[in-house]
Protein backbone atom coordinates (compact mmCIF):
# COMPACT_ATOMS: atom_id res chain seq x y z
CA UNK A 1 0.00 0.00 0.00
CA UNK A 2 2.76 2.43 0.81
CA UNK A 3 6.24 2.88 2.11
CA UNK A 4 7.02 3.05 5.82
CA UNK A 5 9.19 6.22 5.59
CA UNK A 6 6.49 8.04 3.65
CA UNK A 7 3.98 7.20 6.36
CA UNK A 8 6.32 8.05 9.21
CA UNK A 9 7.04 11.45 7.76
CA UNK A 10 3.43 12.49 8.22
CA UNK A 11 2.75 10.67 11.48
CA UNK A 12 1.90 13.79 13.48
CA UNK A 13 -0.57 14.88 10.85
CA UNK A 14 -2.17 11.48 10.56
CA UNK A 15 -2.39 10.77 14.31
CA UNK A 16 -3.31 14.20 15.60
CA UNK A 17 -4.86 15.97 12.62
CA UNK A 18 -2.01 18.43 12.58
CA UNK A 19 -1.93 20.69 9.59
CA UNK A 20 -0.52 24.08 8.86
CA UNK A 21 -1.67 27.66 8.59
CA UNK A 22 -0.25 30.64 6.72
CA UNK A 23 0.35 33.63 9.00
CA UNK A 24 0.43 35.89 5.96
CA UNK A 25 -3.02 35.15 4.44
CA UNK A 26 -4.67 33.07 7.18
CA UNK A 27 -5.31 30.02 4.97
CA UNK A 28 -5.45 26.66 6.76
CA UNK A 29 -3.89 23.55 5.19
CA UNK A 30 -4.82 19.95 5.78
CA UNK A 31 -3.22 17.80 4.51
CA UNK A 32 -0.37 20.07 5.63
CA UNK A 33 1.55 22.14 3.14
CA UNK A 34 4.80 23.85 3.97
CA UNK A 35 4.45 26.32 1.10
CA UNK A 36 1.44 28.64 0.90
CA UNK A 37 -0.29 28.35 -2.47
CA UNK A 38 -1.82 31.82 -2.08
CA UNK A 39 1.24 33.78 -1.00
CA UNK A 40 3.84 31.40 -2.43
CA UNK A 41 7.28 32.82 -1.60
CA UNK A 42 6.11 35.43 0.91
CA UNK A 43 3.95 33.03 2.92
CA UNK A 44 4.77 32.13 6.54
CA UNK A 45 3.68 28.61 7.44
CA UNK A 46 3.14 27.52 11.04
CA UNK A 47 1.73 24.30 12.51
CA UNK A 48 -1.95 24.15 13.37
CA UNK A 49 -3.93 21.43 15.12
CA UNK A 50 -7.42 21.10 13.69
CA UNK A 51 -10.47 20.79 15.93
CA UNK A 52 -11.49 17.72 13.94
CA UNK A 53 -15.08 18.62 13.21
CA UNK A 54 -16.53 19.10 9.77
CA UNK A 55 -19.09 18.19 7.15
CA UNK A 56 -19.35 15.62 4.34
CA UNK A 57 -19.08 17.24 0.89
CA UNK A 58 -19.38 13.99 -1.10
CA UNK A 59 -18.93 10.29 -0.49
CA UNK A 60 -18.86 6.83 -2.00
CA UNK A 61 -19.11 3.29 -0.75
CA UNK A 62 -16.15 1.31 -2.03
CA UNK A 63 -16.93 -2.28 -2.97
CA UNK A 64 -13.75 -3.06 -4.91
CA UNK A 65 -11.04 -2.19 -2.42
CA UNK A 66 -7.76 -0.43 -2.83
CA UNK A 67 -4.66 -2.55 -2.20
CA UNK A 68 -4.33 -3.12 1.55
CA UNK A 69 -8.01 -2.41 2.25
CA UNK A 70 -9.43 -5.73 1.01
CA UNK A 71 -10.68 -6.89 4.41
CA UNK A 72 -12.61 -3.66 4.97
CA UNK A 73 -15.09 -3.74 2.08
CA UNK A 74 -17.56 -2.29 1.74
CA UNK A 75 -16.14 0.88 3.25
CA UNK A 76 -17.23 4.48 3.01
CA UNK A 77 -14.91 7.12 1.68
CA UNK A 78 -15.74 10.80 1.83
CA UNK A 79 -14.47 14.27 1.11
CA UNK A 80 -14.83 16.17 4.37
CA UNK A 81 -14.63 19.90 4.81
CA UNK A 82 -13.13 20.76 8.19
CA UNK A 83 -14.75 23.68 10.00
CA UNK A 84 -11.56 25.72 9.53
CA UNK A 85 -11.99 25.35 5.74
CA UNK A 86 -9.69 22.75 4.20
CA UNK A 87 -10.94 19.51 2.72
CA UNK A 88 -9.54 16.02 2.96
CA UNK A 89 -10.34 12.48 1.89
CA UNK A 90 -11.08 9.99 4.66
CA UNK A 91 -13.06 6.95 5.58
CA UNK A 92 -16.19 7.52 7.62
CA UNK A 93 -17.16 4.91 10.18
CA UNK A 94 -20.92 4.66 10.02
CA UNK A 95 -23.82 2.69 8.61
CA UNK A 96 -23.44 3.03 4.81
CA UNK A 97 -27.19 3.60 4.56
CA UNK A 98 -27.02 6.61 6.87
CA UNK A 99 -24.16 8.54 5.28
CA UNK A 100 -25.24 11.67 3.41
CA UNK A 101 -23.95 14.91 1.98
CA UNK A 102 -24.00 17.59 4.67
CA UNK A 103 -23.63 15.09 7.52
CA UNK A 104 -21.63 16.47 10.48
CA UNK A 105 -18.60 14.37 11.38
CA UNK A 106 -15.75 14.39 13.92
CA UNK A 107 -12.29 12.84 13.74
CA UNK A 108 -11.47 9.56 15.50
CA UNK A 109 -8.24 7.56 15.80
CA UNK A 110 -8.42 4.24 13.95
CA UNK A 111 -6.47 1.65 12.00
CA UNK A 112 -6.17 2.87 8.39
CA UNK A 113 -4.83 -0.22 6.65
CA UNK A 114 -1.90 -2.59 6.48
CA UNK A 115 0.98 -3.56 4.24
CA UNK A 116 -0.24 -7.03 3.36
CA UNK A 117 -0.30 -9.91 5.87
CA UNK A 118 2.21 -9.42 8.66
CA UNK A 119 3.17 -6.02 7.29
CA UNK A 120 3.07 -2.68 9.03
CA UNK A 121 -0.31 -1.58 10.34
CA UNK A 122 -1.12 2.04 9.64
CA UNK A 123 -3.09 4.06 12.17
CA UNK A 124 -4.47 7.52 11.75
CA UNK A 125 -7.52 9.70 11.50
CA UNK A 126 -10.89 8.57 10.27
CA UNK A 127 -14.21 10.27 10.83
CA UNK A 128 -17.47 9.28 12.54
CA UNK A 129 -20.88 10.94 12.78
CA UNK A 130 -20.61 13.88 15.19
CA UNK A 131 -23.49 12.69 17.35
CA UNK A 132 -22.19 9.10 17.70
Amino acid at each position, binding site marked *: *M*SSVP*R*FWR*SLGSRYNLEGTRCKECGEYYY*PPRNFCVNCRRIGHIEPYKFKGTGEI*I*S*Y*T*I*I*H*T*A*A*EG*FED*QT*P*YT*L*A*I*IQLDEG*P*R*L*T*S*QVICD*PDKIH*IGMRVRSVFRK*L*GEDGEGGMI*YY*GTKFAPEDS
Partner: protein
Amino acid sequence: MRDVAIIGVKNTKFGELWGKSLRDIVVEAGAGALEDAGIGGKEIDSLYVGNMSGGRFIDQEHIGALIADYSGLSKNLHVPATRVEAACASGGLALRQAIMAVASGYNDIVIAAGAEKMTDVGSEEASSALAAAADREWEGMAGATFPGIYAMIARLHMHRYGTTSEQLAEVAVKNHKNGSLNPIAQYKNRITVDDVLNSIMVADPLHIFDCSPITDGASALVLAPADIAHKYTDTPIYIRATAQASDTIALHDRRDITTLDATVVAAKRAYSMAKLKPEDIDLVEVHDCFTIAEICAIEDLGFAEKGKGGIVTANGETAIGGRIPVNTSGGLKACGHPVGATGIKQAVEIVTQLRGEAGKRQVEGAEYGMTHNVGGSGATAVVHIFSRER
Protein backbone atom coordinates in the same frame (compact mmCIF):
# COMPACT_ATOMS: atom_id res chain seq x y z
CA MET B 1 4.79 29.88 -35.14
CA ARG B 2 4.10 27.57 -38.08
CA ASP B 3 0.82 25.82 -38.82
CA VAL B 4 1.00 22.09 -38.20
CA ALA B 5 -0.74 19.23 -40.00
CA ILE B 6 -1.23 15.53 -39.36
CA ILE B 7 -0.22 13.49 -42.38
CA GLY B 8 -0.37 9.93 -41.06
CA VAL B 9 -2.29 7.97 -38.41
CA LYS B 10 -2.57 4.44 -37.07
CA ASN B 11 -4.12 2.61 -34.12
CA THR B 12 -3.36 -0.98 -33.21
CA LYS B 13 -6.24 -3.13 -32.15
CA PHE B 14 -7.17 -2.23 -28.56
CA GLY B 15 -7.81 -5.03 -26.09
CA GLU B 16 -6.10 -7.73 -24.08
CA LEU B 17 -3.19 -8.33 -26.41
CA TRP B 18 -1.53 -11.10 -24.41
CA GLY B 19 0.50 -12.30 -27.38
CA LYS B 20 2.17 -8.92 -27.95
CA SER B 21 4.63 -6.81 -26.00
CA LEU B 22 4.76 -3.03 -25.66
CA ARG B 23 7.52 -2.86 -28.25
CA ASP B 24 5.47 -4.99 -30.66
CA ILE B 25 2.41 -2.76 -30.54
CA VAL B 26 4.37 0.48 -30.74
CA VAL B 27 6.20 -0.67 -33.85
CA GLU B 28 2.89 -1.75 -35.38
CA ALA B 29 1.31 1.67 -34.75
CA GLY B 30 4.40 3.64 -35.75
CA ALA B 31 5.03 1.72 -38.95
CA GLY B 32 1.35 2.02 -39.85
CA ALA B 33 1.37 5.78 -39.36
CA LEU B 34 4.50 6.16 -41.48
CA GLU B 35 2.98 4.02 -44.21
CA ASP B 36 -0.17 6.13 -44.06
CA ALA B 37 1.98 9.24 -44.52
CA GLY B 38 4.06 7.58 -47.23
CA ILE B 39 7.39 8.27 -45.59
CA GLY B 40 10.30 6.18 -44.42
CA GLY B 41 12.53 6.82 -41.45
CA LYS B 42 15.14 9.24 -42.74
CA GLU B 43 12.82 12.26 -42.72
CA ILE B 44 11.94 11.87 -39.03
CA ASP B 45 13.37 14.62 -36.83
CA SER B 46 12.07 13.51 -33.45
CA LEU B 47 9.74 11.19 -31.58
CA TYR B 48 7.51 11.85 -28.58
CA VAL B 49 5.81 8.95 -26.85
CA GLY B 50 3.12 9.10 -24.20
CA ASN B 51 3.43 6.35 -21.63
CA MET B 52 2.02 6.54 -18.15
CA SER B 53 3.54 3.71 -16.19
CA GLY B 54 5.89 1.38 -18.04
CA GLY B 55 7.77 0.95 -14.78
CA ARG B 56 4.71 -0.47 -13.04
CA PHE B 57 3.00 -2.28 -15.92
CA ILE B 58 5.98 -3.94 -17.62
CA ASP B 59 8.82 -3.10 -15.23
CA GLN B 60 10.49 -1.09 -17.97
CA GLU B 61 11.52 2.55 -17.91
CA HIS B 62 13.44 4.45 -20.59
CA ILE B 63 10.46 3.96 -22.90
CA GLY B 64 11.53 6.67 -25.37
CA ALA B 65 14.78 4.92 -26.15
CA LEU B 66 13.12 1.50 -26.22
CA ILE B 67 10.65 2.65 -28.82
CA ALA B 68 13.23 4.44 -30.96
CA ASP B 69 15.30 1.24 -30.87
CA TYR B 70 12.53 -1.13 -31.89
CA SER B 71 11.22 1.28 -34.54
CA GLY B 72 14.62 1.23 -36.20
CA LEU B 73 15.08 4.92 -35.47
CA SER B 74 18.13 4.45 -33.25
CA LYS B 75 20.43 2.54 -35.57
CA ASN B 76 22.20 4.92 -38.00
CA LEU B 77 19.50 7.62 -37.67
CA HIS B 78 19.80 8.19 -33.90
CA VAL B 79 16.47 10.03 -33.82
CA PRO B 80 15.88 11.77 -30.47
CA ALA B 81 13.05 10.09 -28.54
CA THR B 82 11.33 11.55 -25.50
CA ARG B 83 8.84 9.91 -23.18
CA VAL B 84 6.08 12.19 -21.92
CA GLU B 85 4.16 11.41 -18.75
CA ALA B 86 0.99 12.97 -17.35
CA ALA B 87 -0.88 9.89 -16.15
CA CYS B 88 -3.82 9.16 -18.48
CA ALA B 89 -3.11 12.42 -20.35
CA SER B 90 0.35 11.23 -21.40
CA GLY B 91 -0.74 10.68 -25.01
CA GLY B 92 -2.39 14.07 -25.38
CA LEU B 93 0.67 15.69 -23.91
CA ALA B 94 3.00 13.78 -26.28
CA LEU B 95 0.96 15.20 -29.15
CA ARG B 96 1.25 18.67 -27.69
CA GLN B 97 5.04 18.35 -27.40
CA ALA B 98 5.24 17.15 -31.00
CA ILE B 99 3.09 20.07 -32.19
CA MET B 100 5.31 22.56 -30.38
CA ALA B 101 8.41 21.00 -31.93
CA VAL B 102 7.01 21.48 -35.45
CA ALA B 103 5.28 24.82 -34.81
CA SER B 104 8.46 26.33 -33.41
CA GLY B 105 10.36 25.43 -36.54
CA TYR B 106 12.77 23.32 -34.58
CA ASN B 107 11.62 20.10 -36.27
CA ASP B 108 9.77 19.24 -39.48
CA ILE B 109 8.59 15.63 -39.43
CA VAL B 110 7.75 14.44 -35.93
CA ILE B 111 6.10 11.27 -34.61
CA ALA B 112 3.68 11.52 -31.71
CA ALA B 113 2.90 8.11 -30.29
CA GLY B 114 1.24 6.70 -27.22
CA ALA B 115 1.31 3.22 -25.80
CA GLU B 116 0.48 1.19 -22.74
CA LYS B 117 0.67 -2.53 -22.04
CA MET B 118 -1.56 -3.04 -19.02
CA THR B 119 -2.42 -6.74 -19.05
CA ASP B 120 1.05 -8.11 -18.32
CA VAL B 121 0.21 -7.57 -14.63
CA GLY B 122 -2.90 -8.70 -12.76
CA SER B 123 -5.87 -6.38 -12.46
CA GLU B 124 -5.08 -5.56 -8.80
CA GLU B 125 -1.58 -4.46 -9.68
CA ALA B 126 -2.92 -2.50 -12.64
CA SER B 127 -5.45 -0.74 -10.40
CA SER B 128 -2.71 0.10 -7.94
CA ALA B 129 -0.57 1.59 -10.73
CA LEU B 130 -3.52 3.67 -11.91
CA ALA B 131 -4.20 4.88 -8.36
CA ALA B 132 -0.74 6.46 -8.45
CA ALA B 133 -2.23 9.14 -10.73
CA ALA B 134 -4.15 10.45 -7.71
CA ASP B 135 -2.55 11.77 -4.51
CA ARG B 136 -0.99 8.63 -3.08
CA GLU B 137 -0.27 10.11 0.35
CA TRP B 138 -3.59 11.81 1.01
CA GLU B 139 -6.13 9.99 -1.16
CA GLY B 140 -4.60 6.54 -1.68
CA MET B 141 -3.66 6.07 1.97
CA ALA B 142 -7.26 6.74 2.98
CA GLY B 143 -8.35 3.83 0.80
CA ALA B 144 -9.29 5.79 -2.30
CA THR B 145 -9.44 4.00 -5.63
CA PHE B 146 -9.83 5.72 -8.97
CA PRO B 147 -13.44 4.61 -9.35
CA GLY B 148 -13.96 5.83 -5.77
CA ILE B 149 -12.66 9.30 -6.58
CA TYR B 150 -14.89 9.61 -9.66
CA ALA B 151 -17.77 8.15 -7.65
CA MET B 152 -17.49 11.14 -5.31
CA ILE B 153 -17.71 13.45 -8.33
CA ALA B 154 -20.77 11.51 -9.48
CA ARG B 155 -22.41 11.58 -6.04
CA LEU B 156 -22.19 15.35 -5.75
CA HIS B 157 -23.29 15.84 -9.37
CA MET B 158 -26.38 13.74 -8.64
CA HIS B 159 -27.04 15.54 -5.38
CA ARG B 160 -26.69 19.00 -6.84
CA TYR B 161 -28.13 18.62 -10.35
CA GLY B 162 -30.42 15.62 -10.11
CA THR B 163 -28.28 13.53 -12.47
CA THR B 164 -29.42 9.89 -12.33
CA SER B 165 -27.72 6.50 -12.55
CA GLU B 166 -29.75 5.90 -15.70
CA GLN B 167 -28.27 9.03 -17.31
CA LEU B 168 -24.76 7.87 -16.40
CA ALA B 169 -25.58 4.48 -17.92
CA GLU B 170 -26.66 6.17 -21.17
CA VAL B 171 -23.05 7.27 -21.66
CA ALA B 172 -21.89 3.66 -21.58
CA VAL B 173 -24.75 2.50 -23.80
CA LYS B 174 -23.92 5.13 -26.45
CA ASN B 175 -20.20 4.47 -26.33
CA HIS B 176 -20.67 0.71 -26.68
CA LYS B 177 -22.93 1.36 -29.67
CA ASN B 178 -20.23 3.55 -31.24
CA GLY B 179 -17.56 0.99 -30.33
CA SER B 180 -19.54 -1.70 -32.15
CA LEU B 181 -18.85 0.31 -35.34
CA ASN B 182 -15.11 0.66 -34.68
CA PRO B 183 -12.91 -2.24 -35.84
CA ILE B 184 -10.19 -1.51 -33.26
CA ALA B 185 -12.50 -1.33 -30.23
CA GLN B 186 -11.96 -3.64 -27.26
CA TYR B 187 -15.71 -4.10 -26.79
CA LYS B 188 -17.99 -4.37 -29.81
CA ASN B 189 -21.02 -5.63 -27.91
CA ARG B 190 -23.99 -3.33 -27.42
CA ILE B 191 -25.32 -2.95 -23.90
CA THR B 192 -28.49 -1.57 -22.32
CA VAL B 193 -29.12 0.78 -19.41
CA ASP B 194 -30.26 -2.24 -17.39
CA ASP B 195 -27.00 -4.07 -18.15
CA VAL B 196 -25.12 -1.15 -16.60
CA LEU B 197 -27.41 -0.82 -13.59
CA ASN B 198 -27.33 -4.58 -12.94
CA SER B 199 -23.55 -4.86 -13.20
CA ILE B 200 -21.38 -5.15 -10.08
CA MET B 201 -21.13 -2.03 -7.92
CA VAL B 202 -17.50 -0.91 -7.80
CA ALA B 203 -17.77 2.37 -5.92
CA ASP B 204 -21.31 3.53 -5.30
CA PRO B 205 -22.87 4.99 -7.52
CA LEU B 206 -20.50 3.65 -10.19
CA HIS B 207 -21.02 0.11 -11.52
CA ILE B 208 -18.35 -1.82 -13.35
CA PHE B 209 -20.00 -0.85 -16.67
CA ASP B 210 -19.54 2.80 -15.69
CA CYS B 211 -15.77 2.23 -15.78
CA SER B 212 -13.31 2.02 -18.66
CA PRO B 213 -11.41 -1.27 -18.86
CA ILE B 214 -7.77 -2.36 -18.56
CA THR B 215 -6.42 -2.33 -22.11
CA ASP B 216 -3.33 -2.82 -24.25
CA GLY B 217 -2.87 -0.64 -27.27
CA ALA B 218 -0.74 1.83 -29.19
CA SER B 219 -1.45 4.75 -31.50
CA ALA B 220 0.74 6.97 -33.62
CA LEU B 221 0.55 10.18 -35.63
CA VAL B 222 2.93 11.77 -38.12
CA LEU B 223 3.14 15.58 -37.99
CA ALA B 224 4.52 17.97 -40.58
CA PRO B 225 4.52 21.73 -41.23
CA ALA B 226 1.23 22.61 -42.94
CA ASP B 227 3.12 24.26 -45.82
CA ILE B 228 4.59 20.96 -46.98
CA ALA B 229 1.82 18.58 -45.84
CA HIS B 230 0.41 18.16 -49.36
CA LYS B 231 3.72 16.69 -50.43
CA TYR B 232 2.79 13.62 -48.39
CA THR B 233 -0.98 13.34 -48.44
CA ASP B 234 -4.08 14.63 -50.20
CA THR B 235 -5.93 14.84 -46.89
CA PRO B 236 -3.79 16.58 -44.28
CA ILE B 237 -5.73 17.49 -41.15
CA TYR B 238 -4.74 20.76 -39.52
CA ILE B 239 -4.10 21.48 -35.85
CA ARG B 240 -5.99 24.61 -34.91
CA ALA B 241 -5.26 24.65 -31.20
CA THR B 242 -3.25 22.89 -28.54
CA ALA B 243 -3.89 23.77 -24.91
CA GLN B 244 -3.09 22.38 -21.51
CA ALA B 245 -3.97 23.28 -17.93
CA SER B 246 -3.27 21.98 -14.44
CA ASP B 247 -5.25 21.67 -11.21
CA THR B 248 -4.67 20.19 -7.76
CA ILE B 249 -3.66 16.54 -7.77
CA ALA B 250 -6.18 15.66 -5.04
CA LEU B 251 -9.88 15.96 -5.77
CA HIS B 252 -10.59 17.29 -2.28
CA ASP B 253 -8.56 20.45 -2.92
CA ARG B 254 -10.57 21.52 -5.99
CA ARG B 255 -12.62 24.69 -6.15
CA ASP B 256 -15.63 22.59 -7.18
CA ILE B 257 -15.76 18.80 -7.00
CA THR B 258 -18.09 18.53 -10.02
CA THR B 259 -16.10 20.76 -12.39
CA LEU B 260 -12.69 19.98 -13.82
CA ASP B 261 -11.26 23.49 -13.86
CA ALA B 262 -8.25 22.23 -15.85
CA THR B 263 -10.66 21.20 -18.62
CA VAL B 264 -12.54 24.51 -18.47
CA VAL B 265 -9.31 26.50 -18.74
CA ALA B 266 -7.66 24.29 -21.38
CA ALA B 267 -10.86 24.52 -23.46
CA LYS B 268 -11.00 28.29 -23.08
CA ARG B 269 -7.39 28.55 -24.23
CA ALA B 270 -8.06 26.20 -27.16
CA TYR B 271 -11.20 28.01 -28.34
CA SER B 272 -9.36 31.30 -28.13
CA MET B 273 -6.34 29.98 -30.04
CA ALA B 274 -8.56 28.49 -32.78
CA LYS B 275 -10.93 31.48 -32.77
CA LEU B 276 -13.83 29.02 -32.52
CA LYS B 277 -16.79 28.45 -30.21
CA PRO B 278 -18.30 25.20 -28.89
CA GLU B 279 -21.07 25.55 -31.53
CA ASP B 280 -18.45 25.36 -34.29
CA ILE B 281 -17.18 21.93 -33.22
CA ASP B 282 -18.71 19.01 -35.17
CA LEU B 283 -17.52 16.15 -32.99
CA VAL B 284 -15.43 15.57 -29.89
CA GLU B 285 -13.51 12.72 -28.30
CA VAL B 286 -13.69 13.25 -24.53
CA HIS B 287 -11.98 11.48 -21.65
CA ASP B 288 -14.72 9.10 -20.44
CA CYS B 289 -12.63 7.02 -18.05
CA PHE B 290 -15.88 6.80 -16.09
CA THR B 291 -19.38 7.65 -17.32
CA ILE B 292 -19.55 10.68 -14.99
CA ALA B 293 -16.32 11.93 -16.58
CA GLU B 294 -18.05 12.27 -19.95
CA ILE B 295 -20.98 14.12 -18.34
CA CYS B 296 -18.58 16.59 -16.69
CA ALA B 297 -16.48 16.86 -19.86
CA ILE B 298 -19.32 17.94 -22.14
CA GLU B 299 -20.33 20.53 -19.55
CA ASP B 300 -16.79 21.79 -18.95
CA LEU B 301 -16.05 21.96 -22.70
CA GLY B 302 -19.19 24.05 -23.31
CA PHE B 303 -21.37 21.46 -25.10
CA ALA B 304 -23.93 21.32 -22.30
CA GLU B 305 -25.03 23.73 -19.61
CA LYS B 306 -23.52 22.92 -16.18
CA GLY B 307 -25.62 20.20 -14.60
CA LYS B 308 -27.38 19.27 -17.87
CA GLY B 309 -24.81 16.76 -19.16
CA GLY B 310 -26.92 13.80 -18.10
CA ILE B 311 -30.09 15.09 -19.74
CA VAL B 312 -28.26 16.04 -22.94
CA THR B 313 -26.83 12.51 -23.13
CA ALA B 314 -30.15 10.79 -22.42
CA ASN B 315 -31.77 12.96 -25.13
CA GLY B 316 -29.40 11.56 -27.73
CA GLU B 317 -27.72 14.91 -28.44
CA THR B 318 -24.26 13.32 -28.10
CA ALA B 319 -24.99 10.30 -30.32
CA ILE B 320 -23.73 10.01 -33.90
CA GLY B 321 -26.28 12.04 -35.86
CA GLY B 322 -27.01 14.17 -32.80
CA ARG B 323 -26.18 17.83 -32.13
CA ILE B 324 -22.61 17.14 -30.99
CA PRO B 325 -21.43 13.53 -31.43
CA VAL B 326 -19.23 12.55 -28.49
CA ASN B 327 -16.80 9.63 -28.57
CA THR B 328 -17.61 8.24 -32.00
CA SER B 329 -14.67 5.86 -31.51
CA GLY B 330 -16.46 4.21 -28.59
CA GLY B 331 -14.50 6.33 -26.15
CA LEU B 332 -12.38 4.97 -23.36
CA LYS B 333 -15.35 2.90 -22.25
CA ALA B 334 -15.77 0.68 -25.32
CA CYS B 335 -12.64 1.35 -27.34
CA GLY B 336 -10.54 0.64 -24.26
CA HIS B 337 -8.18 2.83 -22.28
CA PRO B 338 -4.48 1.99 -22.65
CA VAL B 339 -3.65 5.00 -20.50
CA GLY B 340 -0.60 6.33 -22.38
CA ALA B 341 -2.16 5.75 -25.80
CA THR B 342 -5.61 7.25 -25.28
CA GLY B 343 -4.76 10.88 -26.12
CA ILE B 344 -3.20 9.82 -29.42
CA LYS B 345 -6.04 7.42 -30.22
CA GLN B 346 -8.51 10.28 -29.76
CA ALA B 347 -6.58 12.31 -32.35
CA VAL B 348 -6.49 9.34 -34.73
CA GLU B 349 -10.28 9.14 -34.49
CA ILE B 350 -10.76 12.85 -35.20
CA VAL B 351 -8.36 12.73 -38.18
CA THR B 352 -10.19 9.68 -39.53
CA GLN B 353 -13.53 11.49 -39.18
CA LEU B 354 -12.30 14.75 -40.74
CA ARG B 355 -10.87 12.78 -43.66
CA GLY B 356 -14.33 11.23 -44.10
CA GLU B 357 -12.92 7.73 -43.62
CA ALA B 358 -14.85 6.64 -40.51
CA GLY B 359 -17.25 4.30 -42.32
CA LYS B 360 -20.43 3.47 -40.41
CA ARG B 361 -19.58 5.86 -37.59
CA GLN B 362 -18.87 8.79 -39.94
CA VAL B 363 -20.17 12.19 -38.80
CA GLU B 364 -21.44 13.70 -42.04
CA GLY B 365 -19.68 16.85 -43.18
CA ALA B 366 -17.37 17.08 -40.18
CA GLU B 367 -15.14 20.17 -40.45
CA TYR B 368 -13.92 20.72 -36.90
CA GLY B 369 -13.08 18.10 -34.27
CA MET B 370 -11.82 18.29 -30.71
CA THR B 371 -9.98 15.96 -28.34
CA HIS B 372 -10.00 16.16 -24.54
CA ASN B 373 -7.53 14.09 -22.55
CA VAL B 374 -7.40 14.09 -18.73
CA GLY B 375 -4.71 12.96 -16.32
CA GLY B 376 -5.76 11.67 -12.92
CA SER B 377 -9.04 13.07 -11.70
CA GLY B 378 -8.34 16.34 -13.52
CA ALA B 379 -4.90 17.52 -12.40
CA THR B 380 -3.94 17.71 -16.09
CA ALA B 381 -6.21 18.43 -19.04
CA VAL B 382 -5.10 18.64 -22.67
CA VAL B 383 -7.43 19.92 -25.39
CA HIS B 384 -6.76 19.95 -29.13
CA ILE B 385 -8.85 21.31 -32.01
CA PHE B 386 -8.44 20.00 -35.55
CA SER B 387 -9.84 21.14 -38.90
CA ARG B 388 -10.34 19.67 -42.37
CA GLU B 389 -9.54 22.93 -44.16
CA ARG B 390 -6.48 24.93 -43.34
